[in-house]
């Protein structure tokens, strides 16, 4: 049994125990049926048939099994009715996810913010969010994250991140504490097999910007000298409940731009060759003078040109933050 299967088995066993308790209290048919399905999955694991389609005996994709360990047939063997139901569910999930997205363009004090969000499929595992201050003097928070996996399973985790950051945003926490608490909640909710990388920003006055990184690709900073990555990283959210995080402060001058991105940008690959941090930095350097929406499009177009017609294999999200060129004055963070 693989480590992945062991983790699934532990979860299913815990789920079965919980269902057994519930059905003793409330013997509802739907709970009993669910418990039968969990039992069937555990039994299939025992005899090495978990993840094998009951109809055609072919393996079901690992991604689908990770998203729903109770699956018993592959997509090809689903009935037409079941396939339509799946498509409807996927479309509903996609609509819900789109409703959770922030405005595409945000102007806050001396900052302008824009993002580009392009899922690989119907739904995305990338997480982008803007948390507006709930009291005067608080910073605006920005989050760009990427949960493990793709598709519906990843989108569930993404919506969990959305909910917990919004729940924490009113607590007036310093950035490292905000990320620390989010990590603890995410770890409690998901178990150690699921995790998310993210970069969180707090935008203050006078060009002061604080950045906390939880295992996410390094943001790129464009100033008059050029473009370079901002180093520094903590552990991803959800791996260990007791992880702590540090904030790095940047002093951003008017006209300078910070670009956050998911690995769907830098890790896009054409055969064995990866787009990479160097091409990404060069693309941003060429586009750094453009209005933010055009900058984002230019960065996206550059990776697509590199792929030369090949399809991207991951969700892509780019988030650009610029201190407006007419910003003056400096007040404490």
């Amino acid at each position, binding site marked *: 049994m693989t480590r992945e299967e062991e983790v699934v088995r532990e979860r299913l066993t815990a789920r079965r125990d919980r269902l057994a308790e519930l059905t003793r209290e409330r013997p509802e048919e739907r709970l009993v049926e669910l418990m039968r399905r969990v039992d069937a999955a555990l039994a299939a694991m025992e005899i090495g048939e978990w993840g094998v389609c009951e109809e055609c005996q072919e393996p079901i994709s690992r991604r689908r099994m990770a998203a729903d360990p109770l699956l018993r047939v592959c997509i090809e063997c689903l009935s037409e009715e079941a396939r339509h139901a799946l498509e409807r569910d996927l479309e509903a999930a996609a609509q819900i996810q789109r409703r959770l997205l922030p405005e595409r363009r945000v102007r806050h004090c001396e900052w302008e913010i824009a993002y580009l969000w392009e899922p690989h499929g119907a739904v995305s595992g990338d997480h982008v969010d803007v948390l507006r201050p709930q009291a005067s003097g608080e910073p605006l928070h920005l989050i760009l994250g990427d949960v493990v996996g793709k598709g519906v399973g990843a989108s569930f985790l993404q919506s969990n991140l959305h909910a917990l950051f919004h729940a924490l945003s009113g607590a007036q926490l310093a950035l490292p504490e905000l990320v620390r608490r989010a990590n603890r909640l995410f770890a409690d909710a998901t178990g150690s097999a699921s995790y998310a990388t993210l970069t969180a920003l707090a935008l203050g006055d006078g060009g002061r910007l604080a950045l906390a990184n939880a295992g996410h690709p390094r943001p790129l900073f464009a100033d008059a000298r050029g473009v370079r990555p901002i180093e520094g990283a903590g552990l991803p959210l959800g791996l260990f409940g007791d992880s702590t995080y540090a904030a790095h402060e940047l002093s951003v001058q008017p006209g300078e731009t910070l670009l956050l991105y998911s690995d769907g940008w830098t890790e896009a690959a054409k055969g064995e060759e990866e787009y990479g941090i*160097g091409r990404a930095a060069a693309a941003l350097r060429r586009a750094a003078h453009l209005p933010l929406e055009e900058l984002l499009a230019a960065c996206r177009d550059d990776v697509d040109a590199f792929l030369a017609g090949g399809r991207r294999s991951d969700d892509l999200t780019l988030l650009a933050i610029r201190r407006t060129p007419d910003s003056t004055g400096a007040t404490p963070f």
Partner: protein
Amino acid sequence: MRSLAQSDTERFADQLERSFRGGAWHGPALGETLDGVDAATARRRPIPGSHNIFEIVSHLTFWLEETRRRIAGKQEAPSEDGWHRPDDGSDEAWSDLLADLETAHRGLHADVRALDAERLEDTVAGSDPTLRGMLLGVLQHNAYHSGQIVLLARAGAAG
């Protein structure tokens, strides 16, 4: 999503890519300095007695390839230092040289990414006695000549 901790060899590969393509600490990377430089500019010798851009790119390409040879196990120091006065400074020769530079960088980047970190302490010929020292030298070498190319391109354009 790739693994979190960067090994020493991944750091070197990252720095090589950034010194060559973009994201260099000092400003434009080598590839960025060459962007838009045509054969005529590369041939021009705005400072009498100094190397031109064509020769510098040829020299850089030689050392990227030499580094690959040493990673592959070559022990003896080279008999030359890669300074060649090009016989043919044509547009075609210039684009071929840029393609060779790209190939040499891409190959070295791939070699370093695939390198076992323990091999960084291997002894190699040359002024830096280890692979680690040699790779650090390559990074400095790229940066040094990138600066020269910027100045020569500006001087050539002005002249």
